[in-house]
């Protein structure tokens, strides 16, 4: 059931990215290009995506455990450290340069263009590089995901 739920969530997520045009790098870059012909699309996506997610976090408080897992896995860390900021800066630069972030890049690999494949391959190499970098190993073991 857990795996099936993950598949359904992935499908909904991918469909949402395609429907909202967040899958199109030009659309994302037009949002980020505050000095050019600014496109508000990404803002609409965030405005619509956050409330259902927020409601789920409120419901979660009244639940002992999720339906298909033994417990919730929500990161509790509130510490703002250099890793969070430098990671976000690096991610942002890559996101701005290509117009792809991980979700849209993965979602668009079946849509008949080659660029997402190259981007995803480089992204996986980047993730693996983080894994093998000595200071990063500490980050990986100390902090939870997100």
């Amino acid at each position: 059931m857990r795996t099936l739920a993950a598949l359904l969530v992935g499908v909904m997520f991918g469909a949402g990215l395609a429907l909202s045009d967040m899958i199109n790098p030009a659309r994302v870059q037009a949002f980020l290009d505050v000095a050019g012909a600014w496109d508000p699309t990404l803002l609409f996506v965030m405005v619509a995506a956050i409330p259902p997610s927020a409601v789920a976090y409120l419901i979660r408080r009244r639940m002992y455990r999720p339906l298909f897992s033994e417990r919730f896995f929500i990161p509790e860390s509130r510490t703002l450290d250099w890793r969070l900021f430098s990671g976000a800066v690096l991610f942002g630069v890559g996101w701005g340069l290509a117009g792809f972030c991980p979700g849209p890049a993965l979602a668009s690999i079946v849509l008949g263009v080659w660029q997402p494949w190259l981007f995803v391959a480089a992204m996986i190499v980047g993730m693996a590089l983080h894994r093998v970098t000595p200071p990063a190993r500490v980050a990986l073991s100390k902090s939870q995901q997100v």
Partner: protein
Amino acid sequence: MEPLSPLMPLTGGLLIGLAAALFLLLNGRIAGVSGMAARATGIASEGAPWPSAIAFVVGLPAGAAIVAHLIRQPDIAVTSSAPVLVAAGLLVGYGTRLGNGCTSGHGVCGIARLSPRSIAATVTFMASAALAVFISRHVVGG
């Protein structure tokens, strides 16, 4: 590029938000794509169970393909050259591991639960992305 009717991003966003909500209530986890990708490839040693991560990652293109066939064929307009795509991919891969998340985990899920780390990360990557676009379009290129 043509302006898009707000109905599309609002519906798409709602779908993304519902997906994140379901993942939390059913599996108890954050719907963060970078974390799932790292888990699916075996790069992350912690996180969602491997079959779930694989299913989620496979679901993304499947969902996009369904929309492309039934509702609208999205245009994937990539302006970056191959070397830029490689550099950007490396930065996104490394950066999302170092910063523990991307637009989905920090941007959608993190803001929804008012996580200070996620809000700080989202403001930071939005700013650095806007700066990267500004420099590449209006300073270097353009």
